[in-house]
């Protein structure tokens, strides 16, 4: 019976193919609509699953890429920092070189490689020594001003006692008033100018320069500026606290003055020991 029905259907399909398909189409329409709901739902689920998977996979790639980019950023940051350091160093060295050429004096450039081996002195250790021509008592400066003086010179290193150490003393001159005195370091890491004449008109903010009379310093090299002035009643002299021009805590390169005399010959306005003539007023 079943076989007969099957044979009948096949023969109908074979004899009337177009009509059969059209009939089946019409009959299947509502069924297709019903099936369309779960199909759509499943398709949506499939799509979302595929999207989720695709997103996950993509995220995995993004994560890896992010990781790689982060490493690249870190590397570039490091490189940038190194380049900035090199740029800063070259700027510093160029300024030092320009200053060195400008002074016309013989100087020896040196790098600061350490601090005093004890905590009792404010001193620096330089990477140049006797072999390079450095001798004790030579002055040390930067383009900003006086740093200190060499107290010890080994074959390849030298020890510089800073201007802020109480054991150091340099003859100074108040640039505006031309009053001389002795500049010493203080225990608080500053400097103090002593033996300023009582009649001196020095005031806060005045620049103090080297007088060139002693030590390895030329005339006119900036030591610092007057911070405060102390006048004790009955004393023969007055004294002034000085803020050093050079920040000795941040020194990296310095110049050791090997022939300070040459500065004297080129003495500028600051170098003259004679008091300044008052300007003539026109009547």
């Amino acid at each position, binding site marked *: 019976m079943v076989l007969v029905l099957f044979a009948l259907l096949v023969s109908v399909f074979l004899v009337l193919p177009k009509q059969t398909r059209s009939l089946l189409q019409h009959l299947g329409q509502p069924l297709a609509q019903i099936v369309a709901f779960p199909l759509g739902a499943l398709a949506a689920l499939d799509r979302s699953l595929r999207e989720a998977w695709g997103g996950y996979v993509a995220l995995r790639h993004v994560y890896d890429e992010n990781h790689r980019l982060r490493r690249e950023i870190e590397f570039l940051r490091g490189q940038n920092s190194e380049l900035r350091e090199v740029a800063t160093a070259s700027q510093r060295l160029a300024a030092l070189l320009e200053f060195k050429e400008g002074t016309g004096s013989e100087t020896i450039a040196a790098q600061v*490689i*350490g*601090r*005093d*081996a*004890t*905590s*009792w*002195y*404010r*001193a620096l*250790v330089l990477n140049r020594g006797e072999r390079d021509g450095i001798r004790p008592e030579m002055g040390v400066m930067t383009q900003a001003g006086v740093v200190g003086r060499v*107290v*010890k010179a*080994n074959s390849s*290193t030298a*020890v*510089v*006692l800073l201007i802020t*150490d*109480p*054991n150091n003393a340099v003859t100074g001159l108040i640039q505006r008033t031309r009053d001389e005195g002795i500049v010493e370091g*203080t*225990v*608080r890491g500053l400097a103090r100018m002593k033996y300023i004449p009582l009649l001196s008109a020095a005031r806060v903010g005045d620049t103090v320069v080297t007088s060139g009379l002693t030590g390895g310093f030329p005339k006119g090299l900036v030591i610092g500026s007057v911070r405060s002035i102390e006048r004790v009643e009955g004393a023969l002299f007055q004294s002034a606290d000085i803020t050093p021009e050079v920040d000795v805590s941040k020194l990296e390169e310095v110049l050791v003055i090997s022939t300070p005399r040459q500065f004297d010959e080129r003495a500028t306005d600051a170098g003259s020991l004679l008091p300044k003539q008052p300007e003539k007023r026109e009547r």
Partner: protein
Amino acid sequence: MKRALYAGLVLGLVPIQTTVLQYASIGGIRPDLCLIAVCLVGFVAGEREGMLLGFALGLIQDLFSAGDPGLNLVTKGLIGFLAGLVGKLLANATPVAMLATLLGLSVVSGTVFLMAVRVGEGLADLFFVTRSVLLPQALIDAVVGTGAYWLIARRGQADQATQEKHGPLW
């Protein structure tokens, strides 16, 4: 082994003291590694070795310090000798004993420097330097030195235990 250690201390401590130790300073005061080493050696190995190491380290320290030549040599030699005496007198070498020894000897060393170095003018400056250099220096030396002693003692105990278990290490 001991000679190599002493040679290492003599050649390595002062360069460390002058260069990298500035990054470990507290208020501008760095631990005096030479004093600590001399104290430890004197305390553990006796006054002779302490004094000799003190002379050697002091000599090198003098080369890289702005002070008068010989000041560190004499001071460190004296400290090594005194540390040796203290080590001999004490029955039990404990970290507390080491702390007290280092504190006392660093104060002795600081006092020698205070007398030898020009620290400004008047009592006010003297008190300022005592308060801002001598005492903090002694405190830092004592703490760092005691820490080092504790580490060495622990290492010594561990080595001893290993030796008892497996025989001599070298």
